[in-house]
């Protein structure tokens, strides 16, 4: 009797052997790579907060930039904050609509036409262009004729953002199932309406995410701004369309090369401000897209 139950009982434990070992090795490796990824990220964040948080405050964010020798407590980074916000906003206004429309053309209208293939290829190539080259490009075609300006900086940042926005939006539009398009066509919708009322809303969260990554990257760019907005300002240039301007990455770059403690502290504060701006932007965009996509699940 006992023998019978012994035979019929089923062993549901994980079988020992090479397969179990492989499984454990893979799990350990995954945890390890997660830790390896999180360490530099956490360290960067910790350093920036530790060194930058103490100087942060409303007056720091709004005051004029003092000379480098001035100690902490006087002056701030106001012009750089204003410049970064203005220039990035301008670049976004130029690059995001253009990029999204370009992706719509590629995905919904272009099909396999040579023009669409060419644009897709050029966008891929443009993604690989170093940002400093983009700065030099705007310098030679715009700055040499019209001088330094926030607008020139926005052109350079826009050129950097454009291929990223095109490619990420294109990928998101590709993910929209054709059955949704057909459902709309079957009701007698025109192509424009199918795109505007079904395809775009379905792809919106992904498009916004892609655009945000592009914006955050552009906001942190230094090289293209060196040739286009010059930097080195101490007061706010209220005209973004003309005259030299400044931005947070440039300020960080300048202050990091200074020997003065006050300048260094302001540099850390600017770095923290830049990260905070990107962070706030991400959260705001999530809230906005959540409102738009409350029916997508």
């Amino acid at each position: 009797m006992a023998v019978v139950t012994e035979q019929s009982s089923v062993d549901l434990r994980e079988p020992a052997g090479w397969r179990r070992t492989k499984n454990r090795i893979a799990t350990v490796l995954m945890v390890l790579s997660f830790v390896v990824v999180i360490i530099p990220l956490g360290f960067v964040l910790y350093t920036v907060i530790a060194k930058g948080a103490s100087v942060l405050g409303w007056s720091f964010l709004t005051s004029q930039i003092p000379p480098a020798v001035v100690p902490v407590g006087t002056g701030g980074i106001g012009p750089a904050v204003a410049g970064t916000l203005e220039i990035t906003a301008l670049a976004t206004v130029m690059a995001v609509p253009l990029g999204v429309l370009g992706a719509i053309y590629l995905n919904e209208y272009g099909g396999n036409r040579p023009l669409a293939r060419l644009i897709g290829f050029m966008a891929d190539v443009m993604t690989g262009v170093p940002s400093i080259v983009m700065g030099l490009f705007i310098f030679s075609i715009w700055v040499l004729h019209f001088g330094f300006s926030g607008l020139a900086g926005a052109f350079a940042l826009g050129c950097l953002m454009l291929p990223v926005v095109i490619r990420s939006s294109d990928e998101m539009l590709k993910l929209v199932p054709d059955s949704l398009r057909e459902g709309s066509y079957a009701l007698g919708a025109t192509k424009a309406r199918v795109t505007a009322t079904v395809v775009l809303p379905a792809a919106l969260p992904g498009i916004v995410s892609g655009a945000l990554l592009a914006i955050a990257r552009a906001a942190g760019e230094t090289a293209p701004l060196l040739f286009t907005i010059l930097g080195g300002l101490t007061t706010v240039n209220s005209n973004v369309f003309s005259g030299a301007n400044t931005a947070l990455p440039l300020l960080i770059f300048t202050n990091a090369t200074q020997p003065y403690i006050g300048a260094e502290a302001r540099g850390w504060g600017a770095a923290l401000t830049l990260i905070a701006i990107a962070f706030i932007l991400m959260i705001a965009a999530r809230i906005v897209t959540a409102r738009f996509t409350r029916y997508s699940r």
Partner: protein
Amino acid sequence: MEQPEDTVTSFRLPEPTAQQERVVPVPAGTPVFEVKDVSIYYGSFRAVANVSLSIYQNEITAFIGSSGSGKTTVLRAFNRMNDLVPGARLEGEIYYRGEPLYGKDVSPIAVRRRIGMVFQKPNPFPKSIYDNVAYGPRINGIRNKSRLNEIVERSLRGAALWDEVKNRLHTSGLSLSGGQAQRLCIARTIAVEPDVVLMDEPASALDPIATGAIEDLMKEIKSQYTIVIVTHNMQQATRVSDRTAFFSVLINPESDVRTGTLVEYDRTAKLFEDPRDDRTKAYVTGRMG
């Protein structure tokens, strides 16, 4: 399964007019579609060859046949959905209420506003239930709120979904079960008051109860619409349809090219009880396919 001599001879189909007389023995009602010797190509591949038949008003016409026999392709030709497939081309002529459907001045948009379609897989838009149903009327320019409310309620009632969703019209259309989602798609289709409703295996993803609900619905709404349904389910064809068209695959023995064609078209009772063609007989009695 396939008799070679039969396959070869069926590549030489009778003249279209002769076939027309052969396949529609009982003229009845007003023809909504007249299909005249239609072949449909995807690029150089001929998917469907020499189909001729008539679809009659306020009837349910079922298309049955094995996979690859061209039922869906022919169905999608009725509202020009095949236009969306790159390289798709139609030869022959389809008349819709006497007008050539593939005429030069015909807009596929205008066609689809009159000839709606329900797809095999329920495809509600990622919008609210209300907005799903109101989508079509809004395309047609209806903006008036109370008018839209009225259309949404009437369409959802028509699709036998109203009682289940009336308290949550503003929740997502994707939150519905498979059967409910398909009825939502039917409501969305009838919201624009089409002349014809095309259904491409509308119940193939549904359980028997949901299928029964859809079939009852079809019988209910056929007094207002003309319905063409593609189905793999022969019982479904016998349950709901007035006429049945049996499609089959022709295999060219030399090139192995498979082409769908219409084998027999008749009143449903006649086709299932006393089919004229041996291939139909084999299919409906379950000896083939």
